């Protein structure tokens, strides 16, 4: 092939650059926030819910004029809920010059991302990336594996288990508890915390089973339900999320299993339609939010989200994303910069006007502190159970509210703070 002469090839290059410059003018004006989540595979529906939440809150900010004169732009990336894929995706977003990322489904992915981010930030202090974690609640992320650029907006496993076991300790009729969890860092930490805290608070309660099953693979929980039945358990404690909790509860319902379920994630993300009448009074969850915690702002938010996404498989669920976007934008405005280091220094001292009560970020481990609720599945009555979940006619009613100051746990985190 004949080589073009130097003059023509440089003219060609100039033309291409001009074309590109005209074709992509707007991108320099937005603040990109990458959304890293499993958008395909067994947890795709959960990933899509988070994306809708992020889009909803980013749009609200943009309608008011954006941040520092720029709009927020959400850029989704599919991690397939796999730690290996997440690391590849992290490289992609770094290459694209994105400085902020958000993730929450899967602590295994979160740990991989936090590690990749830590290495990248250490080697490239002028191209740091900030990680907002809205749902990966393995305690290690704010303890031994903490990182200055990682901020967690959902209460961690131990904080929620403390609330859950305090409530369980008051249930005098409970004698036998069965643990069933997903076999990875998060599920194992739930099982460990449940065991330790129950033994401490109610040594008379017997733990009659401790199962760990593969994440997202089991479609038929009937064998596990048969095991729970055979063990004679009164209560089941599970951290399962997505299909894993929906199918577990479905199998329990089919077998007519009469136990109380103490869950982390049965209140949304596709599970409530599976449960029905059988769950009333028996299905409990421990969360930082549910649609009936009360307050006019809660009502406004639940209704606004429903109006924006009328599909019945969707409800306002992640207040952690709401607080994350709020803190991100106010930190940028306070620091008058979009540089992640300056934003992080502002974010770690930030308070938020959330829907539930006193909400602030801890500067010693970057864990958000907020009230925690234990609630039970009940029939929606328009009064104390105003909203139902996912159009089922059933919603959650608060059993116990734990104030922020009572949720704080000690930490082993020692940050490597950035210089300056």
């Amino acid at each position: 092939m004949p080589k073009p002469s130097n003059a023509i090839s440089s003219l060609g290059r100039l033309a291409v650059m001009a074309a590109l410059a005209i074709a992509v003018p707007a991108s320099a004006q937005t603040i990109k926030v990458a959304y890293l989540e499993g958008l395909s595979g067994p947890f795709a529906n959960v990933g899509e819910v988070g994306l809708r939440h992020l889009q909803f809150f980013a749009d609200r900010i943009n309608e008011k004029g954006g941040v520092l004169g720029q709009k927020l732009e959400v850029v989704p990336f599919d991690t397939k809920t796999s730690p290996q894929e997440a690391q590849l995706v992290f490289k992609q977003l770094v290459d694209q010059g994105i400085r902020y990322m958000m993730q929450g489904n899967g602590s295994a992915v979160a740990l991989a991302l936090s590690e990749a981010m830590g290495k990248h930030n250490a080697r490239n202090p002028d191209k740091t990336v900030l990680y907002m974690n809205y749902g990966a609640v393995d305690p290690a992320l704010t303890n031994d594996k903490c990182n200055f650029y990682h901020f967690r907006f959902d209460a961690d496993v131990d904080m929620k288990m403390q609330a859950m076991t305090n409530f369980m300790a008051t249930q005098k009729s409970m004698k036998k508890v069965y643990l069933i969890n997903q076999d990875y860092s998060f599920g194992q930490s739930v099982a460990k915390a449940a065991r330790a805290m129950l033994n401490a608070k109610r040594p008379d309660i017997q733990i009659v089973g401790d199962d760990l099953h593969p994440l997202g693979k089991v479609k038929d929980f009937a064998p596990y339900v048969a095991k729970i039945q055979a063990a004679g358990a009164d209560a089941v404690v599970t951290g399962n999320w997505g299909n894993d909790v929906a199918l577990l509860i479905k199998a329990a319902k089919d077998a007519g299993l009469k136990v109380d379920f103490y869950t982390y994630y049965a209140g949304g993300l596709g599970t409530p339609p599976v449960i029905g009448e059988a769950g009333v009074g028996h299905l409990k969850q421990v969360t930082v939010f549910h649609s009936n915690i009360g307050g006019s702002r809660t009502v406004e938010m639940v209704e606004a989200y429903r109006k924006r996404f009328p599909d019945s498989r969707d409800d306002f669920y992640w207040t952690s994303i709401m607080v994350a976007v709020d803190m991100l934008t106010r930190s940028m405005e306070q620091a008058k910069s979009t540089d992640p280091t300056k934003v992080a220094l502002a974010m770690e001292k930030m308070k938020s006007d959330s829907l539930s009560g006193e909400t602030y970020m801890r500067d010693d481990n970057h864990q958000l502190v907020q009230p925690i609720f234990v609630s039970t599945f009940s029939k929606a009555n328009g009064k104390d159970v105003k909203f139902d979940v996912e159009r089922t006619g059933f919603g959650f009613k608060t059993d116990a509210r734990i104030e922020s100051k009572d949720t704080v746990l000690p930490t082993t985190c020692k940050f490597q703070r950035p210089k300056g």
Partner: protein
Amino acid sequence: MEFFLVTLLNSLSYGLLLFMLSSGLTLIFSMMGVLNFAHASFYMLGAYFAYQTSVYLGFWPALVVAPALVAVLGALTERYGLRTVHKYGHVAELLFTFGLAYIIEELVHLIWGRAPVPYRIPEILDFSAFSVFSTKYPAYRVFMMLVSVGMLGGLFLLLTRTRIGLIIQASLTHPDTVEALGHNVPRVFMGVFAGGAALAGLAGVIGGNAFVTEPGMAVSVGTIVFVVVVFGGMGSLAGAFVASLIIGAVQTFSVAFDVSLLTLFAKLGFTPDPQSAWMELWKVTIAQAAPVLPYVLMVAMLIVRPKGLMGTREG
């Protein structure tokens, strides 16, 4: 006792569903020597077609309509896809079905989205059929078992008692002779492929509402079906039946055993060092390993007896 009976029933219903799926695959493999990677995708399509039909017409029409639609798709795949690729050899056929599986998954994403669809058990079957001591056994599982057994019976009768069945059986081993006798063997192949796909589709109709109907269902079920076919022996329907029941039992019963190599060591009187790197391996219980056991069995079978339990054709 209660636990054993309930688990036995569960393993039976799961095993029979596996058989419905793998029988189609075995038939196709015996006939054409093609291991159809898209077979689990036909299962998924059956579930989605059933969902869509049940939205407009209800569940009972879906039982007939969905497998019929999948059969048509199967016939088209064979006629215009496999037959063209056949002349390039087995590897080409495998790659074709492999690619087809991906295409079907993406089509499902496009049409129905990535989230699970609310394909539910019909109200009329959503009750508990009987109680085993204190556990209720759902009527729908009984229905699943009845359909599987009915289908097995129908298939057996078709293959052994009807003329077309005799032609199919003959084409299995002596296609050239059958063609020489004047039968349209390519049409028989197409019919068998369509029939195998319809079986997978029927399994999807039945299984899709008991388990979750979502785009990932083909992948999660596909691998187990191969285990069944390899374990039972390539080309043997009876082998597939026995293997399905065994794999179903293994996967269901193993959940009950909380014993690990560590407990075995304890019985033998020695405790390994808790800090050792192997500890993670010793601690794994059979219950934890339950989903992996079928694959372990498959590997063991391939080592010990590659033909499978009752195989008639070398893999």
